[in-house]
């Protein structure tokens, strides 16, 4: 089964990002293919490398980055949502005149078409949100 996963909320405030992660992990372990994980709305906040959660808490961002590296995942942050929330890679920093970037490893910023394409190309779309 080919899956696209959509994440609508940021890390920590809502459990959505946790549920999406555990679902993705279980699907991969069962041999399914994840075509794409698309982060929309506040979901783009999953992709900042600047978080420092408490020592006794999970590191949601790092966990995504590791999963992406292990399984060569395509993790996309919606560009319009990322601009509104302040998630920036090198290209965005240059285009919008920002003096810093904060995107985490394993994420890329791209357009909403990537979500639609996920719907077209996958057998299932599973949405996690508030």
């Amino acid at each position: 089964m080919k899956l696209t996963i959509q994440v609508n909320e940021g890390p920590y405030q809502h459990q959505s990002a946790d549920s999406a992660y555990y679902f993705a992990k279980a699907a991969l372990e069962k041999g399914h293919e994840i075509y794409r994980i698309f982060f929309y709305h506040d979901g783009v906040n999953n992709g900042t490398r600047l978080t420092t959660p408490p020592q006794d808490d999970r590191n949601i961002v790092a966990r995504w980055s590791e999963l992406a590296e292990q399984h060569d995942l395509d993790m996309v942050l919606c560009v319009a949502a990322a601009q509104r929330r302040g998630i920036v890679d090198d290209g965005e920093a240059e285009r919008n005149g920002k003096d810093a970037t904060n995107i985490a490893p394993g994420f890329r910023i791209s357009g909403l078409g990537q979500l639609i394409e996920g719907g077209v190309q996958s057998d299932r779309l599973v949405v996690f949100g508030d």
Partner: protein
Amino acid sequence: MAEETKKFMYINRKAPYGTIYAWEALEVVLIGAAFEQDVSVAFMDDGVYQLAKGQDTSGIGMKNFSPTYAALGDFEITKIYVEKESLEERGLTLDDLQHLVWEDEDEDWAEKDSIRLVSRAELGDVLAGQDVLFNF
């Protein structure tokens, strides 16, 4: 991408302005229109408020995105389902909503209504017939 056409349904259940979901959902619908899928949009629960007439956001400093719904027909999005029970519970009728239309190329560009008023049970049938459901 042209190899397969899927039935895409965008389901809107949240009020506008209190949260951004309605607006960012609309952005997905517009982008999605370029993908030549078979598109439907549903408004139920608080989502029916998105189509309310006469929205004026000048007092809250936010962009009034409601005129965009009227443009859906130009994007060939012509199947817009509005749930009856949701309207009734909220004391609304179709007259409180924007009148959304599309022009039928096959009938000499005759103007037709886009909104289909459906009961919850009928909307359930419509959902059952879709391939992909988008939620915001």
